[in-house]
């Protein structure tokens, strides 16, 4: 850990995020871990907008705004530019939401992962296009309300499994993180910082306006996501070695769902489906963790 004090740099300028926003909590703790020799590359999204409007910025480190689908490539370019100037130690932090990661930036993300670009990519996942006003993304879970999956037409498809997609690239490090488990988050950020190659942190980012939840419940919801196995905490090294980093209580998913208005239209049988899908996905994680023979995570089982 470094002694970098994020708030020291925030005395005169604050960010513009909503109350209870997970993204800013995550950014604060990850930047504290990475320290000042870091550069942020961020596409369109909540993080870009809430950092400040010109000429104001809340970022204590250099912050490069880039177009929506350009995160991974621009970050790779920053890396190349720094490397040509002997700044190999500077951390290039790609900081993008789920829309930029799961959807519009997916091709470039996969390409940068395949090239094993030496960047740390963090996806703050609030499970929809929140900055444009709550439209579904491929990170939106089954049964969720959004403005493009309205009442009567809730999202029918499950959330895209970004972690396994990235794992199939064989990159050095993937980890899921939660703002309710800061020690786990900081340990993973520190580990990612000290590795070379493409590192991916998938961080769970509660969004009160988008999830129709009370801002005071953000951390509770994040904790319940982990305790119900909706968002298990694990890490994958070199695309193969999976380890669950927290043993959850295995609470029923209804405890997680009931705090969020986006799930208020679910019927009982849909809630049961979410429970059984969650159980089977979690079981597959446990199986993969215990499997010593598997060289890479395969998606078809």
């Amino acid at each position: 850990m470094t002694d970098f004090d994020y708030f020291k740099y925030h005395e005169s300028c604050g960010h513009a995020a909503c109350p209870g926003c997970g993204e800013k909590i995550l950014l604060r703790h990850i930047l504290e871990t990475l320290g000042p020799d870091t550069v942020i590359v961020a596409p369109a999204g909540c993080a870009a907008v809430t950092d400040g409007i010109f000429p104001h910025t809340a970022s204590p480190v250099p912050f490069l705004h880039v177009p929506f689908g350009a995160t991974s490539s621009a970050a790779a370019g920053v890396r190349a530019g720094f490397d040509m100037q002997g700044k190999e130690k500077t951390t290039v932090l790609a900081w993008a939401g789920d829309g930029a990661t799961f959807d519009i930036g997916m091709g470039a993300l996969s390409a940068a992962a395949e090239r094993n670009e030496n960047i740390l990519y963090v996806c703050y996942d609030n499970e929809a296009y929140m900055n444009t006003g709550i439209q579904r993304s491929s990170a939106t879970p089954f049964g969720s309300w959004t403005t493009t999956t309205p009442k009567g037409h809730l999202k029918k498809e499950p959330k895209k499994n970004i972690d396994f997609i990235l794992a199939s690239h064989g990159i050095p490090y993937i980890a899921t993180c939660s703002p309710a488990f800061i020690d786990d988050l900081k340990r993973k950020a520190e580990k990612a910082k000290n590795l070379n190659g493409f590192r991916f942190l998938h961080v769970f980012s509660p969004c009160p306006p988008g999830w129709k939840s009370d801002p005071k419940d953000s951390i509770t919801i994040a904790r319940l996501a982990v305790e119900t196995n909706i968002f298990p905490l694990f890490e994958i090294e070199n695309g193969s070695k999976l380890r669950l980093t927290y043993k959850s209580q295995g609470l029923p998913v209804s405890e997680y769902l009931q705090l969020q208005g986006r799930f208020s239209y679910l019927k009982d049988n849909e809630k049961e489906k979410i429970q059984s899908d969650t159980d089977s996905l979690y079981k597959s994680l446990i199986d993969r963790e215990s499997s010593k023979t598997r060289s890479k995570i395969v998606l078809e089982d």
Partner: protein
Amino acid sequence: MKAVISGNDAVSRAVKLSRVQVISAYPITPQTTISEKLSEICGSGELDAKFVKVESEHSAMATLIGASSTGVRTFTATSAQGLALMHELLFWASGARLPIVLVDVNRAMAAPWTIWCDQTDSLAQRDTGFLQFYCWSNQEILDTTICAFKIAEALALPCMVCFDGFFISHTHEVVDIPDQTEIDEFLPPRKAVTKLDPADPRTFSGGTLPDNFMEFRYKLQKTFERAGQVIDDTFGEFEKRFGRSYKNIETYFIDDAEAVLLASGSAASTVYHTVRKRRDSGDKIGFIKLRQFRPFPETELLSMLKPGVAYGVLDRNLSPGTGGVFTQEIRALLNRNGNPARIGEFIAGLGGRDITTANVERIFAMLKDGAAEDSEIHWIGLKEH
């Protein structure tokens, strides 16, 4: 040193001589041999640069936006669909004031599919805020690409160097290749005014509200307005050092000409040849070669174009519903300035169709018959349809 090289090879040599530090590109015909050659010389260490081999042209330009923001010299090359895929990023590069140099090997835009030449691809990017040059020889490609870095960095503007696919890109010519030491004196390493630097943290290209955005665009426009002088000075210095002269507009037998054709790119060779030949027969015809499109050389053109001469513009491009882009630009320029000179519009050579001496002779004949006075779009070399 003199060598017989292709137009695409002239680009690779220029990139090496310019000591580019980060390259990113995606293969597309007819640009591909530039990427191949640059991969070789980056791999061998002949050029000390990072070549980021991306999955799309969108990512190629995004990579250079990232790299250029750190203060290094950057380069990419593309054609047609690839350039169009970069479109969003081209605005970003100019808005962020990044001196990225892009070579576009001109190729027509599909559909239907074609890999052959016209200039619609780059001319369709005219509003993106890139400087644009059109070359007609391999020597000019090499020299212009080197100068493009100096000009782009002096103005903090991105620059596009264009030349015709296959007609120039794959044609071999004798090219005088300058010594590295001479180029190093002419083109020192880039000095970025601001850059990404953890020791001096700044935020780049963040959100603006209506009270700020217009000033960014005003400054961009003002830079384009002074760009002409910087370009002239740069090519002037180049001429002093290397003995080769390049003007934004180049003229041939226009002083006493009764009919004058304006054209850019590889068609220039055919027009030069035709004018020389017809002059021998006593025809009073001339040629204006358009080399610089952004900024458009308005002052020079206005001083040249006079009433009483039949002018024609040969456009190897099409803006459907309107016509040729060069014609539009020149007519608008004349109109804005109350210059009564008349311009005839000729569309030719789309999708790689040859522009022959017979085509050019036909255009001059039509100009003599009053084609400059009408507002028709004259299609040259069109088959029965």
